[in-house]
């Protein structure tokens, strides 16, 4: 029975049958590298909002991979029926969060050039590293992640595994930042590189998951009334820090880009 697979944790399912991980990858569901993997298979598939035909085929293939001897009827798929690609339409507050990701991704893109610069310098430019840490803590974490944790995630089951994975990512990111600060203070270049790169890889995947999967999933559950409330709460949170803070951090990124992207193009 399919239901016995659906209510199993995804990590356990993939460990039992690695082929399931490959099948999920084919459908753009990247659970294999997840460090937690405690989401139920049914939630993992459901959150991606696949069209019914695609989902039926995916579940058939998973069940067949796990139980090759089982007599499973192949789902009737009308291949002539084309499914229009879904364009993500975020609610306004969520759209603002997606736009904030853009500035964070610009910081992430600079990390290789910054760590190369640190490695090739005589000492460690502590001011530079602490400036990046200030951006990560002040903009990415306090300004952006706090709106997710204090406002957005309250609209769904916060104890659900999917949100818990996001919390864990935030905590892992904070740990990378702490380690990078330690590296800057002790002049340990390898430690700076390891943890800034660790942060880059973590946040790149984290942002992709949020933009493409989590945010649309949350948006689909919100009523119009909740969309309005969420917008006002996020606007109030933005107003509480003032317009100057995001502008200051954007200027910080522009200045870094001017310095390091010019270095790269030389």
């Amino acid at each position, binding site marked *: 029975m399919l239901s016995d697979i659906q209510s199993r944790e995804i990590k356990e399912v993939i460990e039992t049958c690695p082929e399931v991980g490959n099948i999920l990858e084919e459908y753009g569901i990247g659970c294999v590298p997840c460090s937690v993997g405690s989401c139920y298979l049914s939630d993992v598939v459901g959150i991606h909002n696949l069209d019914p035909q695609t989902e039926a085929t995916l579940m058939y293939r998973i069940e067949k991979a796990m139980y090759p001897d089982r007599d499973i009827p192949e789902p009737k798929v009308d291949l002539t029926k084309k499914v229009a690609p879904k364009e993500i339409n975020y*609610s306004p507050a969520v*759209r603002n969060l997606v736009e904030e990701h853009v500035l964070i991704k610009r910081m992430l893109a600079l990390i290789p050039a910054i760590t190369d610069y640190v490695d090739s310098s005589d000492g460690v430019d502590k001011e530079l590293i602490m400036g990046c840490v200030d951006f990560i803590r002040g903009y990415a974490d306090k300004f952006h992640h706090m709106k997710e944790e204090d406002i957005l995630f309250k609209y769904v089951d916060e104890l659900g595994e999917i949100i818990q994975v996001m919390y864990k990512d935030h905590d892992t990111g904070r740990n990378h930042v702490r380690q990078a600060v330690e590296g800057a203070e002790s002049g340990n270049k390898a430690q700076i590189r390891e943890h800034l790169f660790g942060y880059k890889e973590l946040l790149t995947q984290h942002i992709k998951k949020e933009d493409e999967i989590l945010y649309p999933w949350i948006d689909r559950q919100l009523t119009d009334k909740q*969309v*309005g409330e969420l*917008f*006002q709460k996020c606007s109030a949170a933005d107003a509480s820090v003032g317009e100057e803070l995001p502008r200051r951090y954007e200027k910080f990124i522009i200045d870094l880009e001017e310095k390091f992207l010019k270095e790269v193009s030389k």
Partner: protein
Amino acid sequence: MSDCCPGSKTMDFSEKTDQGDSETGKRPSQLRQWPIQLHLVSPQAPYYQEKDVMLVADCVPFALGDFHKDFLKGKSLAIACPKLDSEQEIYVEKIKSLIDDAKINTLTVQIMQVPCCSGLVQVAKAGADKATRKIPLKQVVVGLEGDILSEDWI
């Protein structure tokens, strides 16, 4: 009338349209206010205060079989026709007042797919742009045979 304008082009889908199962029993109205025409309503009316408001093109409820159940329920309403109504600058001011004075929570503009109907979205956007408060604005486009063609936050 000329067939050139999609808004007034004569079309008959009496045979094509699925009539659905015959219904029995009464379906209650979800309307909780009067008046509803945008020239007649006052943004100060209690039924607008901090509510989710629908700004609906006149033709929409006739096309949309489940308008009351699927859209009007729990919402406050104003209706208008962007093609035929006059003095639409008053509409812009009323939208502004609904946002700033009545402090409405969201505004959903529901229009028909015909090109002239998009004028109602422009009216709503103009009012929202003039308002000091910002709120989420949604556009719902209804097909001539009552299907939902799109539903997007704009």
